[in-house]
């Protein structure tokens, strides 16, 4: 089966790929480490987040190995505590939050806007260095013995009782936060000030809208995490009672501050996923996204509502029942804009001639898994259910459906979709489809049993469990193995494609968007001449006409 199932084949022959592009413009390690080109910085981020993804994945795999048997026989409970803590911290702060914005957003957003670069290229490079400094703290912690507080650093355990590397870990998370603040700031200013002539707000690709909403959350939520972790570090160093009740502090204040960041952080992770999915749906259905404005504004609505629901993590922490009721109600509201997106994507696919290339397989995975994750989120938003399943594997399964089933699926879909643009080469379609299938099957096999085992009462964060839970846990570990294969496979075939992949033309998918109007890989300045946009987002006929005209000049 060949890969060109799109009948209106790209009208640019592969041989026309530009000779000079951002990759071969300069050579040498320093030309990468000191680059201000958003595309090269995206590559730096891609390498770093991929490395940390596998570090975080390693800890996950160790946990699944321990959970094969009900007895805590492979690792001590202390070691297991460190594994789930490091898994959470590495995956959230060093992979999920930067992955799509800093890799795909960095690469594609300025090109989608017809800009030569982000508004602040030096700050963009700085954000990568800040990220790396944070990551070095993380690696230091891992190498020197780990940390066991859980990724949430709940006080007073983190301030008073834990004797692991809490300070260095929080410092790493604190520092990394500034890299995402700077990325968000850069994106907002770029979207406002760097759009090409003719590119009005309602002509922007939905990727840009969603990334813009993400940036607002990054900008406004992350500083609250920074101050919270700073207070935690002060408390730990000085032994004063900011959050420790024994010394007069208020541990609930810590939870409020922490979740004021960390709930919106869920949207820092999922909104970029939605950004990618909108592009992929439009590209592989060859249609305008149904209800463009609804999808665009639902991103902003999610960003806004996301700030109003943080206390749903604290229903059993001793907050008043009235505030719990309000937060429960508001939490259900967030489902509305999310559902709008899902309905609009499916409505776009309805009666479309969909081409089932790998990115579109990831779209299907995303929509299915995100919906399950979202609906179980509604279960958890309901006070009565939450009290029952709180701190159980049901919760673990729920947020993995959102973050792994949602964000990671979208990230992989996006990587495959823009791979020809980023590298100038096509990935091998057959292998990619196989890996998408492995990821989908592996994911469900890993996490669906956790819904069941959590609902009947298996608590999270223990290395031993009651024997009646074993069957479901064995299934889960088997799934994790399949999932690992699904994640490792792309490392091989994508690396292979760098040298042996078929050369991609300007627009291998026949998609609409400015990134498909420049060569693959793009030149250093993205476009040789500032483009003028005359078409609406995903307006295929208008875009193809504009492309043909520029060719005939």
């Amino acid at each position, binding site marked *: 089966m060949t890969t060109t199932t799109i009948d209106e084949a790209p009208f640019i022959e592969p041989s026309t790929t530009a000779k000079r592009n951002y990759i071969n413009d300069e050579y040498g390690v320093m030309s990468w480490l000191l680059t201000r080109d958003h595309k090269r910085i995206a590559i730096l981020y891609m390498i770093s987040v991929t490395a940390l993804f596998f570090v975080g994945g390693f800890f996950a795999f160790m946990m699944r190995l321990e959970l094969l048997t009900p007895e805590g026989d492979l690792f001590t409970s202390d070691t297991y505590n460190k594994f789930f803590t490091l898994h959470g911290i590495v995956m959230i702060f060093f992979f999920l939050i930067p992955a799509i914005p800093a890799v795909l957003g960095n690469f594609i957003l300025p090109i989608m806007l017809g800009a030569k670069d982000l508004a602040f290229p030096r700050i963009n490079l700085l954000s990568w260095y800040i990220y790396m400094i944070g990551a070095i703290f993380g690696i230091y912690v891992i190498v020197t013995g780990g940390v066991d507080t859980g990724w949430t650093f709940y006080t007073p355990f983190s301030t008073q009782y834990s004797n692991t590397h809490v300070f260095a870990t929080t410092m790493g998370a604190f520092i990394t936060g500034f890299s995402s603040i700077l990325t968000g700031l850069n994106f907002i200013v770029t979207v406002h000030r760097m759009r090409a002539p003719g590119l009005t707000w309602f002509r922007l690709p939905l990727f840009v809208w969603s990334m813009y909403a993400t940036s607002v959350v990054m900008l*406004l939520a992350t500083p*609250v995490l920074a101050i919270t972790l700073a207070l935690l570090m002060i408390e730990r160093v000085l032994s*004063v009672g900011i959050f420790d009740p024994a010394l007069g502090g*208020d541990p609930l204040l810590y939870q409020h501050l922490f979740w004021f960041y960390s709930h919106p952080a869920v949207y820092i992770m999922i909104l970029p996923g939605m950004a990618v999915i909108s592009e992929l749906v439009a590209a592989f259905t060859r249609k305008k996204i149904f209800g463009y404005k609804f999808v665009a504004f639902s991103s902003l609505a999610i960003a806004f509502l996301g700030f109003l629901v943080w206390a749903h993590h604290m229903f059993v922490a001793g907050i008043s029942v009235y505030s719990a009721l309000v937060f429960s109600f508001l939490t259900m509201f967030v489902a509305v804009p999310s559902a709008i997106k899902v309905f609009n994507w499916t409505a776009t696919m309805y009666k479309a001639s969909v081409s089932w290339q790998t990115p579109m397989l990831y779209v299907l995975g995303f929509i299915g898994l995100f919906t399950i994750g979202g609906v179980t989120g509604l279960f958890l938003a309901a006070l009565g259910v939450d009290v029952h399943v709180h701190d159980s594997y049901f919760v673990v399964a729920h947020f993995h459906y959102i973050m792994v089933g949602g964000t990671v699926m979208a990230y992989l879909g996006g990587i495959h979709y823009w791979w020809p643009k980023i590298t100038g080469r096509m990935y091998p379609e057959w292998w990619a489809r196989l890996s998408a299938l492995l990821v989908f099957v592996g994911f469900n096999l890993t996490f669906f049993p956790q819904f069941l085992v959590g609902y009947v009462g298996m608590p999270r964060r223990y290395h031993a469990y009651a024997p009646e839970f074993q069957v479901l846990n064995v299934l889960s570990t088997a799934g994790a193995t399949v999932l690992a294969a699904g994640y490792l496979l792309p490392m091989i075939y994508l690396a292979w494609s760098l040298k042996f992949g078929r050369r991609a033309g300007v627009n291998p998918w026949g998609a609409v968007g400015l990134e498909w109007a*420049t060569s693959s890989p793009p030149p250093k300045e993205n*476009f*040789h001449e500032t*483009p003028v946009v005359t078409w609406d987002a995903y307006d295929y006929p208008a875009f193809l006409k504009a492309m043909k005209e520029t060719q005939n000049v």
Partner: protein
Amino acid sequence: MSDVTLHHGAEHAAEPHAHAHHHPFLQHHFEDLGQQHEASTLGMWMFLATEILFFGGFFLAYTVYRNMYPEAWAAGAHHQNWMVGTINTIVLIGSSLSMALAVYGAQTAKRKFTTLMLVLTLLLGGVFLGVKAYEYSIHIEEGLFPGSHFTYVHHADPSLTRGIELFMVFYFGMTGMHALHMVIGFGLLLYFIRRAWRGDFGEEYYSPIEIMGLYWHFVDIVWIFLFPLLYLIHGGA
């Protein structure tokens, strides 16, 4: 070259840019100085939004504990020297004036005036930090630095001591964070004094000084909130 651009054609290669006016400080990825100015101004406003949320967390925690420990908070604020605080507030507002004048100077291409005003801002900021250091040294001598160095006992009501320590956490934390922002401002001022003296700024290009001004005024405003919260509100205790 046969790769696709939207305005394609060999004739472009030789043609100079339509907007031939290339200012030396125009960065390559901007179309013109106007765009560059708007982008950098917006960037600073966005940064300040982050800063508001950052200090906001501090202010929130301050408020929570003020409610939990009203007497200790009153005693802590009462302990501050409000005269010194007032003088420092006036000094800082003065530095904001000189900063604003520096922006005006840059916009009207008054090279010496701009430089002078920036130096004045630096000096007034230096006075502020000097006074702050003096206050810190007194607090530390009194055993008011939180943690293991905290030896202060509130004799009127020893039960307030723990709360006063918490107050001092916020005192040092908030004023310390404010002072850190001023030190960063110092670095920026030194850099811009050099550039202003060199004559980099004029009617066309003054955004760095304007942005520096935004930052400096913001740091000033933070102090305007810190001063009453930490020095003045003590209910006449």
